[in-house]
């Protein structure tokens, strides 16, 4: 059968569409490509561009689930991203050379109680050592999900973990305003890394603990 020659851009677009289209949709690629034999010039190019768009849509369609349910591998990356930095910061704060566990009466008297606002700083430090527990606990639940598929089902614990960095951030902000300094752990980077990301991680783990909604086949095409 003599088929008219396609122009180079049309042929290139169709070749790309063929490569991108999932295998089970191959018949549809053929269907779209055949139509270009009945078109010419700009119409054929527009049609071929549509083929490419269709192939891209078909490639992405299975990824769009409309939920926040993720694979365990994605959760591993998310866990490290959400809790990793906060965990290091918390560990340093609690157990580092100037960590809370190394505080003693002499240090507290000399460096905190004897300086203006030092008591508040001390309270914040101890507070962060406690509220920062969101990081190790979040890391534990995240890794547990990766290994076993079990998320954070205890909602009270989840909300407590979320409330802790919020309270800490508010307290830090009040302290900063009171003392006229912005060096009290309320910088944007610190808030994002040690409060916002862990909170999002916990929220996601709580979401994953909810039973998945049953898939209702309405028999209707979406959109």
């Amino acid at each position, binding site marked *: *059968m003599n088929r008219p020659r396609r122009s180079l851009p049309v042929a290139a677009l169709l070749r790309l569409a063929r490569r991108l289209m999932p295998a089970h*949709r191959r018949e*549809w690629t053929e269907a779209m490509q*055949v139509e270009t034999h009945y078109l010419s010039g700009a119409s054929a190019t527009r049609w071929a561009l549509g083929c490419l768009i269709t192939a891209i*849509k078909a490639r992405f369609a299975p990824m769009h689930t409309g939920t926040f349910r993720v694979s365990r591998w994605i959760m591993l990356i998310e866990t490290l991203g959400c809790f990793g930095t906060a965990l290091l910061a918390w560990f340093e704060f609690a157990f580092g050379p100037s960590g809370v566990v190394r505080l003693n009466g002499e240090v507290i008297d000399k460096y905190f109680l004897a300086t203006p606002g030092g008591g508040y700083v001390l309270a914040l430090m101890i507070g962060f050592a406690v509220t920062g527990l969101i990081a190790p606990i979040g890391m534990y639940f995240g890794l547990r999900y990766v290994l076993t598929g079990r998320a954070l089902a205890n909602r009270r614990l989840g909300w407590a973990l979320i409330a802790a960095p919020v309270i800490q951030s508010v307290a830090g902000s009040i302290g900063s305003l009171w003392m006229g300094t912005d060096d009290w752990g309320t910088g944007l980077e610190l808030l994002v890394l040690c409060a916002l990301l862990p909170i999002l991680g916990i929220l996601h783990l709580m979401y994953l603990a909810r039973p998945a909604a049953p898939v209702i086949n309405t028999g209707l*095409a979406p959109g």
Partner: protein
Amino acid sequence: MQRTRRSSGQTLNLLQSLMDEPRKWHHGYDLSKATGLLSGTLYPILMRLSDRGFLEHKWLPSQEQGRPPRHVYRLTAQGVAHAKQQFALCDEAGAVSSATVSRA
């Protein structure tokens, strides 16, 4: 109670074109011209309708000499019922919005 979802305007447009002559086989370019939908919009809708059993398709030899067979489409009985249901939903929605406008 399970609610019936309304299709998009583009899907309704396509259903309308297919319903104009429900027993006739339509090829893609025909449908594109009739609906004004570009191929990148038209084919994903055709695929969805086909996946849900609303559309049947086959290869039809071309009547033009030297041209390849074309993929052609028409609604199944289930598809016709679905189209009618969708048009009814649209009418209801239209009636509701008209009533709302007249009340206002």
